[in-house]
């Protein structure tokens, strides 16, 4: 397993991870600012944090109340 981790060129994969992270942060900031969401507010916190990539997208599409 260690060899695999060493063999991966992290400068290639880093943007992928960074973008996921940015998405999560933006989702969290937006979540913290809104008082009301569609459905339970705490549920969305867990969705944003624990579902990679899809979590923040789901929140932006279905969770936000316009």
């Amino acid at each position, binding site marked *: *397993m260690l060899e*695999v981790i060493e*063999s*991966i060129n992290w400068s*290639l*994969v880093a*943007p*992928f991870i960074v*973008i*996921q992270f*940015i*998405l999560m942060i*933006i*989702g969290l900031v*937006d979540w913290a600012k809104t008082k009301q969401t569609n459905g339970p507010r705490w549920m969305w916190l867990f969705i944003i944090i624990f579902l990679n*990539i899809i979590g*923040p*997208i789901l929140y*932006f*599409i279905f969770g*936000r109340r*316009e």
Partner: protein
Amino acid sequence: MTTVLFKKELLENWRNKKWIWVPLVFILLAIMDPITNYYLPEILDAVGGIDGAVIELPDFSPADAIMMSVSQYSTLGVLVTVLLSMGAISSERKSGVLDLVLVKPVSYTKFVVTKWLSLLSLIWSSFIIGMLASWYYTVLLYGEIPFTMLLAVIFYYGLWLTFICTISIFYNTLTHSPGLVAFLTIGTTLVISLLTSLFGTRTAWSPANLSTHLQELLITGDVPSALIYSAIVSILLIILILFASIYSFKQVLHNRNE
């Protein structure tokens, strides 16, 4: 008035963070498959492989890598586009914002066209950024591919995305339920794709064939004539559906006001 409306749309999409998350998601979609496929041998080794079995992995060409991104857009990209646009007009109608906007001297035509343009500007920008990221990774991991090829992919596949956006705007003018808009848009797209594959070569000009012809273009390097026909048919259909949307929007509001 159109520019004021358009600026309002852009501002709204900035405030609800669409201008941030949609480009990011489109970049992720574009680079996901090229990276995973590049590291697939290592990943298989790491999990131990299948006892003694030799797994032959195909060597991907740069054209294959670009098509990986395009095929992600055909599924998840289209899904995101549809979900993103399902409330464009319909939710404003539901919430009553529409009445506030239309009190001002805004023509129905301008209103629909502005909604369409703001959706397109968001999708096209995200798509272009995503394809540039895909191109960067393709050149880095799989080899050179001319920039003009990338431009061709962006132009022709962008037409298919535009087509989907236009269908979505059309259903937006018909109903005030965002869920129904999404369902009908995806349904229509599926039916078009199904009919296209059912009739085979007789429907070579179908917009749903744009990505198939693109693959041909990437492999052979010359523009197949079917691709040009598909593009022309797509543009005509987009214009037609846009006019239909304006007409149906007028009808619906007219009936309601009586």
